[in-house]
């Protein structure tokens, strides 16, 4: 038997050599073959870059009032100027700058609330799926109760309790998304539980928590990643909803949902104040959903050829 392991040299061959590479790279390749997935990835990359580079690329300060430039239309309409490419709002603030800074807020909010949902949801779901029995019942029935509330209504209740504000909105959105992760993780832990390597880990003397989190959990990553990506879009949408209702980001924070709420009154006079944040939300949510679907196709073993 020739030993190909001995001839293996660099990380690069591990990525490019189809015989030897880690399955992770097969899945990356599969994602890149998926056109809509790539479209989602591009949209998200653009938004992410905008968020990171916001101070460098935005033409104006997002909260600076310019009372002489109130409700300037976008550049291509009569009355618009190159100074404010997408026009200004009723306080003369530059729409484009506000949108760019808004990307920062929306992405942070997505990371934080999905993070909360993922950590707690995975933990509860993994315990429920592994232990089964009464503990599973208690955890999952509680999750069912949370799921029984309309999404935004429950978020409103939590924010009303914690007090309005962006940070509390993130927490509320995180909490209402816990059951989604719990369910998915529970199902895949139950699937993995049947596999021989779990018995082998027990036979090797590992304790339960170690088996769950260091042996089983890494095998459940695929559905978690997909759900995280889809959840990101949903979190941005929910946050926009809360902000629109005045329970999330407070003025003058350039949050997209809050911007829509501010522009609502002048929709007939200045359509751009409300429309552009709406488009931003649409694109961001679309981007995450497309990426999520692409990831699902790339990672789901049942769809693998």
């Amino acid at each position: 038997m020739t030993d190909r392991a001995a001839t293996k040299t660099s990380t690069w061959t591990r990525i490019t050599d189809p015989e030897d590479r880690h399955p992770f790279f097969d899945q990356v390749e599969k994602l890149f073959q998926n056109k809509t997935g790539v479209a989602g990835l591009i949209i998200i990359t653009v938004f992410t870059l905008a968020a990171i580079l916001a101070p460098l690329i935005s033409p104006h300060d997002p909260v600076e009032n310019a009372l002489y430039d109130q409700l300037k239309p976008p550049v291509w309409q009569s009355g618009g100027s190159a100074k404010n490419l997408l026009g200004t709002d009723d306080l003369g603030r530059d729409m484009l700058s506000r949108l760019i800074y808004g990307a920062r807020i929306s992405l942070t909010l997505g990371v934080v609330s999905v993070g909360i949902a993922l950590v707690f949801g995975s933990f509860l779901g993994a315990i429920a799926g592994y232990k089964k029995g009464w503990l599973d019942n208690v955890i999952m029935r509680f999750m069912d109760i949370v799921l029984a509330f309309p999404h935004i209504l429950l978020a409103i209740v939590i924010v009303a309790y914690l007090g309005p504000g962006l940070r509390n909105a993130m927490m509320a959105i995180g909490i209402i998304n816990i059951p989604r992760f719990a369910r998915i993780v529970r199902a895949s832990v139950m699937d993995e539980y049947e596999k021989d390597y779990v018995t082998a880990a027990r036979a090797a003397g590992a304790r339960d928590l170690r088996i769950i989190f260091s042996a089983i959990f890494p095998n459940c990553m695929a559905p978690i990643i997909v759900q995280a990506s889809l959840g990101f879009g949903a979190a941005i949408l929910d946050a926009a909803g809360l902000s629109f209702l005045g329970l999330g980001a407070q003025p003058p924070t350039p949050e997209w949902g809050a911007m829509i709420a501010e522009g609502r009154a002048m929709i007939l006079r200045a359509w751009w104040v409300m429309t552009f944040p709406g488009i931003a939300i649409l694109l961001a949510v679309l981007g995450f959903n497309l990426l999520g679907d692409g990831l699902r196709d790339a990672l789901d073993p049942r769809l693998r050829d």
Partner: protein
Amino acid sequence: MHTDPLLSIQNLKTYFQVRGDVLKAVDDVSLTIRQGETLGLVGESGCGKSVTAATIMGLIPMPPGFIAGGAIRFEGQDLLKTAESRMRRIRGSKISMIFQEPMTSLNPVFTVGEQVAEVVRLHENLPEKEIQERVIESFRLVKIPAPTARIREYPHQMSGGMRQRVMIAMALACHPRLMIADEPTTALDVTIQAQILELMNSLKRETGASILFITHDLGVIAEMAQTVAVMYTGKVMEEADVKTLFATPRHPYTIGLMRSIPIVGRGKQQRKLSTIPGSVPSLFNLPQGCLFHERCPEKWQACEQEPPPMIELGQGHRVRCYKYA
């Protein structure tokens, strides 16, 4: 070669509670494994051989399983009465297990070296460098070529034979006293099978560990075991040292099993392959009397009424059949 018993199972009863019925998966089984010896446990699917192994390891899910009686003595303690926290320290270090399916028994997301290292880490408080050395040493022991490179591979990059070697390396990594091999070669090609069996035999000689070897293959048993126990529907039907069992099988079931081994040969004396009539009774619906009487070519009247006791024939040869009473 009569040394002290390393493991002795006395009248073990592992039952399962299933839909109001009690399923006697292992019923009154007594076995002894001596230091450095291989005990072969043979039987058809569902005869309770894997449940016996799982009971020794303390891996029976309870409920639905429960231990209705018996004792498992290992190094002076009764494993059935040992607390879970102590059992965890025994599992994987003093008693380790090799599974049937090398394809699924390794965790697909970790390198094989990492998985062997994990077992060492669980049981021994060693610096990381020594753990790595231990991993490489155990890979050498199971004759995996180029171990320093191989430890960085993932299970999917290895063949079935190599993976089973990794499983054996994992079982050996903490220098166990007893290895339980549950059909370790059933999923492998015949040529690889022979290599693995030879490897296990040489490892047993080198390490002095005892092996409980579970299989349905009598040919494999002849290669591996010093003592053989034949199980049928949860009971040991016959037990003897390997030479005696193959030379003079006593129980009609054992005789039937031996006749069902195909013999490749030429000439007119070649007989038609015989089979045991009927099929294994369901554990839900076991017959009265001797569990084998419905399929037995030599049954007596008594066989239908009372289950026969274990009868000593001398020199450790025991058989559960009225013929020898």
